[in-house]
């Protein structure tokens, strides 16, 4: 059942067993899983069924750190949440992303990837992608068809499966509308958790509409699933003292804000012709080898052994071929590839390619780096002094990248540069030349994957939630979504968000039994 809260008379308390705040990928997945159970589920959505600028404006906030997206444009506040503009890339985190890493602080989850795999498998269906199979060879990407630098040992091909993409709102609205035990409240803005005296239990949640109505939600269990930024905002806004949120005895809520670091990181002068796998961010392929065609996009990753041995963060590398006539080859050393090839007696090939324009008319590729960020306590969400239309303090996002991020990015490119040279594939000009220099290419940005602000850790001094996604020190408050990621990896987060929501639903059903 769907109810527009603006049509409900004031003063009526909303009651359920489980209250889920936020109807995006995590919240809708939870509600779907609870559909048909014996638990009364209340799903609160700030917006309606369509985009509305007044509601969207509730996302407005300040960027007080590195330049970042306008906070009203990098997420969506209506039924279906940010999946309404999701690009659909699906991939699980790697095993190494779940592990603590020597020389790389704050990394690791409280469980191995294998522990999450049963829910990853189920998440594939919800995200409307194929089987849980991410082995490139099973997508037609055999060794002989790969560019030489991707035949190991350091760089390897990877694939992301492509969801249609699933708009969780429209895809799962019918099931929730007919659910006997799930009630969706639209136009319901969660404002503040009220706890008991000790702060160990949430007693109710204050909810307001933009039209000025106020309500209270009572539930046995509350699940915060409002997104990587809003989850921290609501916890901080519910604290009894300024800057300290619910369950926050250690000043952790809002810290460790992570987003993948993206930039055009180099230019690759190509000596070999391109293969059929383009590794281009806009190049999607369909694999015909299975029972049904499946869409995927290839990208370049680092082998687990290299990640471990060289203490590097995870990456996604993509490249975009440029044809002759483009002006990407700039700088004083534009002829470097041919010089070093001369030494190896390859001058003739270069001449034929560059001067006589024989063969594939490709001059080179621009290299796009998507880098796993270091978990950084100084990168954080705070509350601004300004208030929004429903009286909540706005967000102040203080996004920071650590010195190790630049060092790691430069090291990855050095390794890639050595590999493309060693294999005779080409030559790399890195735009992250100096690892000790804190400057980045002007086009560097953080993407729209907001993670880490309510990070998961067994130790309450290092995490906001425990391995069950329950807020440390609060018996009935859980968090769903990418804000619980303690390590970001390089994977797009939606599949992991969905898997974690499925896992949490199973946990809650068991807990409330």
């Amino acid at each position, binding site marked *: 059942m769907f109810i527009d809260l603006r049509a409900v008379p004031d003063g009526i308390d909303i009651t359920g067993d489980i209250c889920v705040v936020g109807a995006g990928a995590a919240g809708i997945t939870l509600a779907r899983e609870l559909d048909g159970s014996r638990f009364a589920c209340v799903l609160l959505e700030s917006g309606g069924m369509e985009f509305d600028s007044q509601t969207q404006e509730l996302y407005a906030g300040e960027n007080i750190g590195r330049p970042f997206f306008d906070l009203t444009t990098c997420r969506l506040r209506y039924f279906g949440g940010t999946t309404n503009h999701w690009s659909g890339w699906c991939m699980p985190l790697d095993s190494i992303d779940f592990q603590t890493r020597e020389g790389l602080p704050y990394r690791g989850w409280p469980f191995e990837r294998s522990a999450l795999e049963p829910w990853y498998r189920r998440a594939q269906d919800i995200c409307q992608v194929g089987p849980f199979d991410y082995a490139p060879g099973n997508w037609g990407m055999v060794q002989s068809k790969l560019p030489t630098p991707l035949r190991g040992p350091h760089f390897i091909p990877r694939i992301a499966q492509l969801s249609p993409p699933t708009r969780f709102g429209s895809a799962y609205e019918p099931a929730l509308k007919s659910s006997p035990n799930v009630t969706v409240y639209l136009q319901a803005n969660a404002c503040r958790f009220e706890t008991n005296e000790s702060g160990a239990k949430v007693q109710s949640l204050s909810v307001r509409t933009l039209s000025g109505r106020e309500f209270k939600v009572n539930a046995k269990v509350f699940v915060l699933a409002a997104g990587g930024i809003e989850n921290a905002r609501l916890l901080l806004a519910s604290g009894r003292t300024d800057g300290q949120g619910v369950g926050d005895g250690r000043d952790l809520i809002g810290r460790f804000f992570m987003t993948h670091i993206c930039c055009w990181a180099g230019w690759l002068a190509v000596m070999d012709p391109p293969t059929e796998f383009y590794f281009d961010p806009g190049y999607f392929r369909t694999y015909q080898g299975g029972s049904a065609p499946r869409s995927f996009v290839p990208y370049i990753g680092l082998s687990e052994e290299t990640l471990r041995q060289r203490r590097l963060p995870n990456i996604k590398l993509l490249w975009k071929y440029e044809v002759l006539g483009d002006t990407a080859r700039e700088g004083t050393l534009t002829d470097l590839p041919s010089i070093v090839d*001369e*030494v190896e007696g390859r001058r003739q090939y270069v001449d034929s390619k560059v001067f006589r324009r024989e063969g594939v008319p490709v001059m080179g590729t621009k290299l796009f780096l998507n880098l796993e960020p270091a978990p950084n306590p100084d990168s954080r969400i705070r509350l601004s002094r300004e208030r929004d239309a429903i009286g909540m303090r706005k967000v102040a996002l203080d996004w920071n990248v650590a010195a190790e991020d630049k060092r790691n990015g430069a090291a990855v*490119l*050095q390794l890639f540069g050595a590999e493309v*040279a060693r294999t005779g594939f080409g*030559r790399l000009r*890195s735009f992250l030349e100096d690892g000790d220099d804190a400057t980045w290419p002007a086009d560097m940005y953080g993407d729209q994957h907001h993670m880490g602000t309510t990070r998961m850790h067994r130790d309450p001094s290092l995490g906001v939630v425990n391995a069950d996604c329950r807020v440390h020190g609060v018996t009935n408050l859980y968090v769903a979504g990418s804000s619980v990621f303690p390590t970001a990896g390089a994977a797009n987060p939606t599949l992991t968000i969905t898997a974690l929501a499925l896992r949490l639903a199973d946990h809650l059903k068991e807990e409330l039994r």
Partner: protein
Amino acid sequence: MSMRSIVLGAAPRSENARERVRKKLVSLFHDLQRAREVGAVYLQSPPGQRAPPLVLAETVLAETGAAAGIEAIRRYVVARIRRELEEVQVVSLDGWIVSPTEARLCALVAADGTP
């Protein structure tokens, strides 16, 4: 013959051998102008990040011997470059990732034989 005259007499022979190797290394290039440009960038690197150009000629002389022909020197240089790349021993020249031997080879051309 005194010890002093032996030492004085040895130096020119060594320099001659080194000069012959330098010339062979420079002859690996068909287009010296390109190599000169790359080498000039290397020579402008901070002192701690570059070696004197003739160090490469000394190394090649020691490793291949004064009698090594151009093809033997080419093979040695190529193997050395490959090893450096495998071990990710690289330097950055205006952002381009090259092996130190490649950079020093170009520097030899740019320095025009001047140590």
